[in-house]
């Protein structure tokens, strides 16, 4: 079943490339984006959250000489990411109706294939292959359909993240030989790796951590993100913020933590400081932004800081909340990027200072942007609230009153969002906003779908959280040598 999930977008990518007629191509692309979404939704209902280990396992030897196999599986940690990937691809296809060529859709399906592969791979070699494969379509998407500085942003994204991941690759090789399993199978390495020496674990963790943290990205490795986000086309930004950044935190939880518990304990305080710094830094930089899209980009750094904070605590509550935060942010940041994209489309600019009073002329755009901003600042009833609440509660249990530092940042977050809203969509009508058109219908409905999902998961996080908790308990904490105490 998981192989079908991978195969559909891959085949779709090739077929879309081959279709010459534009109307047909668009329909075919939509169909191939809907297929994985339907499959992932079915998987969400079929997954048994109570079972330990991985489900829907498939395994096939690939390169037997060095113990590499094609092995995929799913658990409560990867399922939300898989579902998110398929959902966002489908919505982005609905949203990008204007002036896109077949290469655009083909590359997007290729990107979806690679992303899904990262989240279902249970063989480190396979994981790495998909991990790097993500870069190629994303690079071409930014470069082919991006903003004015796209050449610089695309190559910076490509080389920056590639450099970090080749170091991660060396770490993976060390795990292969060091853990004594002579296999890249995640479960078999997990049996041997935690017993290796502390020095080995710390060094390998450092190599893996570099690859993961650059992807998230956290201060001080974040500089590729604002460029890539701002220059990428809206659909690219939505997947970049919604899913690509999660690859980093997912890798930490799936690979680094359970395989290298001593390394994780050594790096715990470093991750804690890095997470808090990123929360603060992202929020402060947001206050100074003039461009709505740049603001959303920096807010991602801040919110991924919350995720890293949750991971750094190495406790069940922290990890589960961090994963839910990944999911919530994966719904909210694409919404915000789509909203800024729609505003740019309708008004011709994203400059906050030039947009005053936009809501008067474009009430739908105003509504969506407000909803996204409120969700992103953690309004109760929306998806990010239970996640942030959980992380901060876990942080209080872990580090005591230090938790006040990140909590106070929420005030800053509220500040920059409300201030930006006040200047851009409320207030006096500016000449540019007067000419602005409202959101087009094909842009409106995908965004409304996201708003509805954000509220749904805000009010009713139970099922996801149940599955996530069970997976953390069964698949992450045993490696860390921790019981199931919350």
């Amino acid at each position, binding site marked *: 079943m998981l192989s079908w999930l991978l195969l559909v977008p891959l085949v779709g990518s090739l077929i879309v490339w081959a279709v010459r007629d534009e109307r047909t191509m668009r329909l075919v692309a939509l169909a191939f984006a809907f297929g994985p979404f339907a499959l992932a939704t079915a998987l969400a209902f079929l997954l048994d959250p109570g079972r330990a280990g991985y489900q829907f396992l498939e395994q096939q030897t*690939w*390169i037997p000489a*060095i113990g590499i196999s094609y092995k995929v599986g799913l658990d409560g940690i990867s399922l939300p990411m898989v579902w998110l990937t398929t959902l966002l691809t489908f919505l982005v296809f609905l949203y990008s109706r204007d002036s896109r060529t077949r290469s655009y859709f083909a590359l997007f399906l290729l990107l979806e294939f690679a992303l899904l592969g990262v989240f279902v791979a249970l063989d480190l*070699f396979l994981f790495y292959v998909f991990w790097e494969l993500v870069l190629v379509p994303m690079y071409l998407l930014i*470069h082919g359909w991006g903003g004015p500085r796209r050449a610089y942003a695309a190559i910076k994204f*490509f*080389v920056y993240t590639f450099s970090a991941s080749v170091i991660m690759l*060396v770490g993976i090789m060390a795990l292969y030989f060091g853990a004594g399993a002579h296999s890249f199978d995640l479960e078999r390495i997990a049996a041997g790796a935690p017993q290796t020496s502390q020095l080995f674990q710390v060094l390998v963790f450092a190599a893996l951590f570099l690859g993961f943290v650059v992807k998230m990205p956290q201060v001080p490795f974040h500089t590729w993100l604002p460029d890539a986000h701002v220059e990428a086309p809206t659909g690219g930004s939505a997947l970049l913020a919604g899913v690509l950044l999660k690859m980093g935190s997912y890798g930490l939880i799936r690979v680094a933590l359970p395989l290298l518990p001593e390394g994780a304990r050594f790096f715990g305080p470093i991750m804690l400081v890095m997470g808090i710094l990123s929360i603060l830094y992202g929020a402060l930089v947001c206050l100074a932004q003039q461009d709505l899209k740049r603001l959303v980009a920096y807010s991602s750094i801040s919110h991924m800081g919350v995720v890293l904070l949750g991971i750094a605590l190495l406790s069940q509550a922290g990890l589960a909340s961090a994963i839910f935060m990944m999911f919530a942010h994966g719904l909210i940041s694409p919404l915000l990027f789509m909203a800024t994209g729609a505003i740019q489309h309708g008004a011709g600019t994203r400059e906050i200072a030039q947009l005053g009073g936009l809501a008067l002329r474009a009430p739908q755009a105003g509504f969506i942007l407000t909803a996204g901003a409120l969700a992103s600042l953690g309004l109760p009833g929306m998806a990010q609230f239970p996640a942030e609440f959980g992380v901060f509660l876990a942080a209080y249990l872990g580090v005591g009153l230090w938790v006040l530092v990140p909590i106070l940042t929420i005030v800053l977050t509220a500040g920059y969002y409300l201030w930006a809203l006040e200047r851009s969509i409320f207030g006096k009508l500016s000449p540019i906003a007067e000419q602005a058109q409202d959101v087009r219908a094909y842009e409106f409905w995908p965004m409304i779908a996201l708003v509805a999902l954000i509220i749904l998961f805000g009010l009713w996080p139970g099922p996801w959280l149940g599955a996530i908790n069970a997976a953390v308990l069964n698949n992450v904490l045993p490696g860390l040598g921790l019981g199931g105490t919350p």
Partner: protein
Amino acid sequence: MSAQDLRAILPELITVLVALASLFIRRRSQQLALVGLLLASASLPFLPRGPAFSGTVEVDGFALVFQALFLAMALLVTLGSEAEVVLPAERPRGKKEYYTLLLFATAGMLAVASAADLIVLFISFELSSLATYALVGYTKGDERSVEAATKFFIIGALSSAIALYGISLLYGVTGTTALRTLAQAREAQRPELALAFKAGMVLVLAGFGFKITAVPFHLWAPDTYEGAPAPVTALLATGSKKMGFAALLKIFLVGLMAFRADWAWLLGLLAFVTMTVGNLLALNQTSVKRLLAYSSIAQAGYILMAFPVATAYGLAGGLFHAITHSLMTAGAFLIVAAIAAGGRGEDLSAYQGLARRQPFLALALMIFLLSLAGVPPLAGFQSKFVLFSSAVEAGLKGPSWLIWLAAAGALNSALSLYYYARVIKAMYFEGPTPAFQATSADPHPERLVPHGGLFVAVVLAFALVILLGLYPAPLLQWLLEAARSLF
């Protein structure tokens, strides 16, 4: 000399005979060369394993891997050598000599692969080198080609002299030129002879290091690669360079394995310097041919990692990367040949908008470049993976600097992505230049397609790069067995 001996050198015999025959048969020299190479390839499975010619030649798994590689590369280059590519109008009748030289060069490479004696190895090496000197200068009317050949010849002759002097020192100390006997020589341990022996090792390394374009013996390569006709460049970067590797691997991993402690650090350093310098110098090149030349230097640095690792797994990685690098580089240089034959030159600007004019060539070149950078799941990634992981393994068990060498190799791959991406950017994201628009009035704006053979060669390399990336298992298994035959 028995019939058994002759059977052991069957591929060499076939290529030499066809080379001589093609001097006298006036027509269809390309087809004749292709047939000869195919026949030689077909003979590979039937060669008797083991020593021949009183132990101066030995057919083992290692030799067969290299012979298969050399024949495959010669086939690709022959296919890609359409008359118009290598022979401008002034030498319409020169076709047959071109293919004769190409076959002689191949015969030399084949003999190096199965040589088990320093003298046989050196002579075979020279046979191949002399043929390539002439090939580089084949377009006599082109100044760059003549300059390239002169430079190549002078430095090549000097290097050969150095290598020969090194061999004479090794012989002077140990009294043998047979590689297997050299490996057991006790004399080298005597303190009064140690210096001469070490000097011999270094001189051999320097002499053959020229062929593999190891820094600092690489200075000839960019100019020669740029000046030579593109298919010949492809031969230099693939077959000829891998011949250097075959020679060095034989000498160091068989003949001098016992003295590994003396040379491992030196070759490790050479690997590091070669990959780093090659990549750094490639960053700012504006000629695609020169860019590929420097990239080829950097790739030689990766392959050099197999020496200090010195395990069967590492050697398999080195062989694997030698093979994938040959495929990617041959493909890339043949595309350069096609573009140059279309009359646009070799500058980066000639590649602007290529994706629209020649979608397949652009796609193929992009795949070759991404594979050279080591982006999965292409062949270049798989071979680098085996190579680098063998260094990590050896580093975990032995000297830990090998892990840093692997990390340096990995970071160098990231660095190389930058200049490969420049070419991709030109092909896909930059419009045709005004210069191109002027030439598009040309009644035959795309003269590239008619070169059927070249097209076939590119398609073959393209298919193999993707196939070996997705399913390297059988090849890797074969290479591991071949590598074990040496240890």
